[in-house]
């Protein structure tokens, strides 16, 4: 390990953690709040290669909010997660870091890195597994949903009788890094929602992005299909459009979350690829602590998509969540995955499972 690597992988994370702790200690009078979230999992898997049983260290999420003045606040979310290519097996990332100016009641201007407000999940749960109703994010997050935007956001919430809310975002394209957008043309996001009743939120959004060069897999966007050789990945321009619809109902007895994504990627090489996904979660609260649930997660990426490449999978799962309190829960989930099509595999169909997932999610 050379000096630079020592600095990057050992010293900076230690300074970073010390800084966070010092901020939290200094917090009280400046109304700064520090929280953390994490999770540990156990996986019992069955696939083509046989059976495996693994304990899994999940993401650990450090979250800071600070009210700087009456109208200006700061929010930061920083995650450390496993990465096998790192010398320490872990890498940090900035998931959100933003300054919010609340210029008039319930209307704000935000500048910074955000989770793109394209559906309920991406706007609400972020990296806090203790808030997740199930163990994993919908599959669409891997391939269709633009996850982050670095830019300018106009936000309104709790307006009128229906608690109307809006988000308009102008920011870097999803093929950009956090310091360079490769084009003059920004990405645009428009999102609307209403909350007609406590616990109910209905929303829709539209995302518009003309990528100068295709580059899936960067942090702002989503992944390209695994097993596609790097040199074979399309590198030309892509016109990306993403329409989402969400219905969330989290009541005392019944919980329902429906996330629908309709996504179009257009290239000069293969034309217009139409992709879609549907995630449905339903849970029944037997008590405040005890929730059995079911989920269906389907994604279909067209054969002619060369932004992330073709895929069709279906996941079905049954699970049970027990909440010890609002800061600790355990989820046990039995799931089966059908991979009906995959651009990176020669065969057409693969059956994975059933698999057992256990997740202990906590906040502190």
């Amino acid at each position, binding site marked *: 390990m050379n000096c630079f690597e020592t600095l990057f992988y050992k010293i900076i994370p230690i300074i970073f953690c010390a800084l966070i702790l010092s901020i939290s200690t200094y917090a009280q009078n400046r*109304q700064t*709040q520090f*929280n953390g979230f994490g999770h540990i999992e156990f996986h019992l898997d069955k696939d083509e290669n046989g059976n495996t049983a693994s304990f899994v260290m999940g993401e650990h999420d450090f*979250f800071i*909010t600070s*009210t700087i003045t*009456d*109208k200006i*606040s700061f*929010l930061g979310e920083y995650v450390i997660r496993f990465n096998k290519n790192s010398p320490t097996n872990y890498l940090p990332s900035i998931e*959100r870091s*933003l300054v*919010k100016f*609340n210029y*008039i*009641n*319930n209307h*704000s201007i*935000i500048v910074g890195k*955000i989770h793109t407000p394209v559906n309920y999940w991406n*706007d*609400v749960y*972020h990296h*806090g597994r203790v*808030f997740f109703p199930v163990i994993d994010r919908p599959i669409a997050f891997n391939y269709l949903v633009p996850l982050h935007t670095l830019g300018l956001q106009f936000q309104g*919430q*709790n307006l009128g009788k229906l*608690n109307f809310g809006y988000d308009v975002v102008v920011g870097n394209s999803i093929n950009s890094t956090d310091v360079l957008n490769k084009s003059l043309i920004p990405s645009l996001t428009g999102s609307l929602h209403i909350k*007609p*009743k*406590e616990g*109910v939120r*209905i929303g829709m959004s539209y995302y518009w992005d003309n990528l100068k060069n295709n580059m899936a897999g960067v942090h702002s966007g989503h992944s390209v299909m695994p097993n596609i050789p790097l040199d074979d990945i399309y590198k030309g321009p892509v016109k990306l459009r993403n329409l989402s*619809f969400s*219905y969330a*109902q989290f009541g*005392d007895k019944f919980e*329902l979350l*429906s996330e*629908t994504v*309709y996504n179009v990627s257009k290239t000069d090489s293969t034309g217009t690829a139409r992709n*879609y996904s*549907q995630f*449905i979660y339903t849970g029944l609260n037997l008590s*405040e602590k005890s929730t059995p649930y079911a989920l269906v997660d389907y994604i*279909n990426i067209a054969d002619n998509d060369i932004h992330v490449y073709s895929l069709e999978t279906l996941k079905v799962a049954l699970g049970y969540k027990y*909440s010890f*309190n*609002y800061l600790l829960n355990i989820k046990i989930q039995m799931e089966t995955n059908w991979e009906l099509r995959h651009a990176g595999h020669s065969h057409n169909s693969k059956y994975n499972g059933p698999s057992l997932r256990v997740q202990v999610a906590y*906040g502190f």
Partner: protein
Amino acid sequence: MKLKILILFILLIPMELTSQSQKLGDLDFLINVSNISSLSSKETISIFRNGRSLWPNDQRVTIVLPSNKSLFAEKVALELYGGSISSMQKFWLALVFQGRANPPVFLQTEEEIFDFVSKNPGSIGVVGKGHPKFPEKYRLTITQ
């Protein structure tokens, strides 16, 4: 065909768009905002559920709630949030985590809440009904 299935998914989603109503009979409210000494119960509940970020005078809304060890936290959680203390805390942590609210201030005793509200313009707090040391100067009258 696939798009039709997708639309069907959306249409099948049940919607139950009725509003909730709750009573605030077991609670006393206090406020430190100039020119506001009374609010309707609907407005009060809305404010305590993050319905307002700034007061008309542009001061930030600071919500002051009992912490989980407080003797009257259960009443507050039930009457203002319709659930347990844990669900009230989850409600706020989730909103703060979403970036859609500033964190409320959680204090253990009535005296601490009285003291905080009196010293911090823009704050609104709640305690159990009938505390003998309730500061009348900061009383928020709830109208129907």
